[in-house]
C-alpha cells in the first residue's frame, strides 16, 4: 500500500519538477547595437537586482565576476534558406568588490575603473553598460549581435551548494541569448 502511494508521489514530484523548469519570468532586458562608420557599439538596458544576501557576500571579502559575452552574427538571405553565420565573439570581464577600508564598491576591468559608495549607483552602471568599438566590420551585409551576461560571485564547488543553487540562487545571475536589432553595413565608394 505504502509503496504504491510512494510511487504516485514520486511521479507527481517528477512531473512538477519537469514543468517548473519551463516557467519563465517576464523579460524586459533590452540589448541594442549602433553602427558608427564600421564600428559596432553595444548598449544594454538590463534589469538586474541585487538581493541583500548578494551584497552581504561582497561585504565579506568576496568578489563578483561580471561577464558580457557578445557574439557577432551575419545574416545571409538566400533564395531558399535564410542562414545565420557566426563571425566573431568577444568577452568583457568586470570585477565587483567592496573595499572595506574606504567603504566603497568598486567595479573594474583591465581598462576601466568605477567606484561609488552606494550599491545602487554601481548597479545602474552594470544595468546600463555601454561598450564602444566592440567589432570592426570589414564586409558588407546585414549583421546582428547576441549577448549573454553573467554575474558570478560563488561557484557551486561542493555538491551541497550545487543542489542549493539549482533552486535558490541569489548569488549568481545570468541572462542568456539577448538578441539585438539588425544593422546593415554598406561600404561607401
Amino acid at each position, binding site marked *: 500500500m505504502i509503496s504504491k502511494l510512494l510511487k504516485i508521489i514520486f511521479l507527481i514530484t517528477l512531473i512538477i519538477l519537469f514543468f517548473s523548469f519551463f516557467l519563465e519570468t517576464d523579460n524586459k532586458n533590452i540589448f541594442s547595437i549602433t553602427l558608427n562608420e564600421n564600428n559596432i557599439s553595444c548598449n544594454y538596458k538590463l534589469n538586474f537586482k541585487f538581493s541583500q544576501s548578494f551584497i552581504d557576500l561582497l561585504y565579506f571579502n568576496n568578489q563578483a565576476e561580471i561577464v558580457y559575452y557578445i557574439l557577432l552574427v551575419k545574416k545571409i538571405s538566400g533564395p531558399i534558406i535564410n542562414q545565420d553565420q557566426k563571425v566573431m565573439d568577444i568577452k568583457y570581464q568586470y570585477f565587483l568588490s567592496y573595499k572595506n577600508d574606504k567603504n566603497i564598491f568598486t567595479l573594474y576591468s583591465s581598462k576601466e575603473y568605477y567606484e561609488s559608495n552606494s550599491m545602487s549607483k554601481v548597479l545602474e552602471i552594470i544595468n546600463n553598460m555601454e561598450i564602444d568599438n566592440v567589432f570592426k566590420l570589414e564586409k558588407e551585409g546585414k549583421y546582428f549581435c547576441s549577448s549573454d551576461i553573467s554575474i558570478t560571485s560563488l561557484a557551486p*564547488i561542493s555538491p551541497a551548494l550545487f543542489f542549493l543553487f539549482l533552486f*535558490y540562487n541569489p548569488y549568481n545571475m545570468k541572462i542568456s541569448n539577448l538578441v539585438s536589432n539588425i544593422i546593415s553595413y554598406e561600404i561607401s565608394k
Partner: protein
Amino acid sequence: MMKRLIILFLCFILFNIIIFGQETSFLEKKDPLFSAILSWYIPGAGLIYSENILKGVIYMGLEYFIAFYGLASIVKINYTWPFNFTFTPPLNPDQEDYFNLAIWGTLFFAVHITSIIDSAITSDKYNQINSDKIRSIPPSPFIASLLSWTYPGLGQFYIKDYFKGSIFMLIDFTQKIILYIALYSKFFTEPEISESFEINWNSLSDSEKIFFVSYASIYILNRILSGYFAYKGAIESYKYYSNYNNLNFNLVPAITSDSMGLYIIISFK
C-alpha cells in the same frame, strides 16, 4: 547540601537570564548559506538555526523516519527490548528490494535537498522580517574551529569564507564516497555476509593497508587543516565587521569571579 544546590541552580538561571537580556537588545543576522550547509550535515539543523524550530524538528524526524523505515524495508531487522538489533540483509536481492531501495533512496534525497533549500529561504525571510533589529555579529574563533573539526568546511561557512569551505566539504564528500565504494566492493560482493568475520592488521594485504592509512591520514588532516584555517580566518574576519553596520568591538581578556577567557565586547556607534 540541598540548599547549596538550589542556590547554585538559581545562580545559574539568573546568570543565564542576565546574558540573555544583554543579547536580546538586537538579533543575530542569519546567513542563508551557513544554514543550508548546517542542514546538509545535520537534517533540519539549518531551520532550527534560522529560528523555525517546529519545521526543523519535522524535517529531522521525517528524514530519520525515511532512513530507518527504508532501511527496514530492505534489511530485515529483528528488535528485542531493550537494545538488541539483528540485521539480516537480503542474500539474493530481488526486483522488489531494488525497487524499495530506489524509492526510499530518492525520497530521502528529495527531503534532504528540500530541507537544505528551505533552510536557506527561511533564514533569508528571517532577515527580511527583522531587518531593523538584526546585526551581523563577529564569529567566535573557537566555535569556528570546533565546527570545522566535526564537519569539515562548516567553520569556513560560519566565518563567511565560502570558497575554502566548499573545498574542504568536497574533500570530505569524495572521501565518504570512496569509502562506500571500497566497502561495497569488499563486502557486498561476497554473499556470506551473515557469517562473523575478523579484521587483523597482519592479515590485510598491502593495498588494503595503504588504503586504511591514507584514508585515516586524509580524514584527520582535512579536519585539522579546516579547523586551523577556520580559527585563523575568524580572527582575520574581524576587520570586516568594524565598518559594517556601524559595529565596533574589541577582544578583551578578562578574569571574573566565575570564569576567565576572551570576551568580545560589542558596541554600536
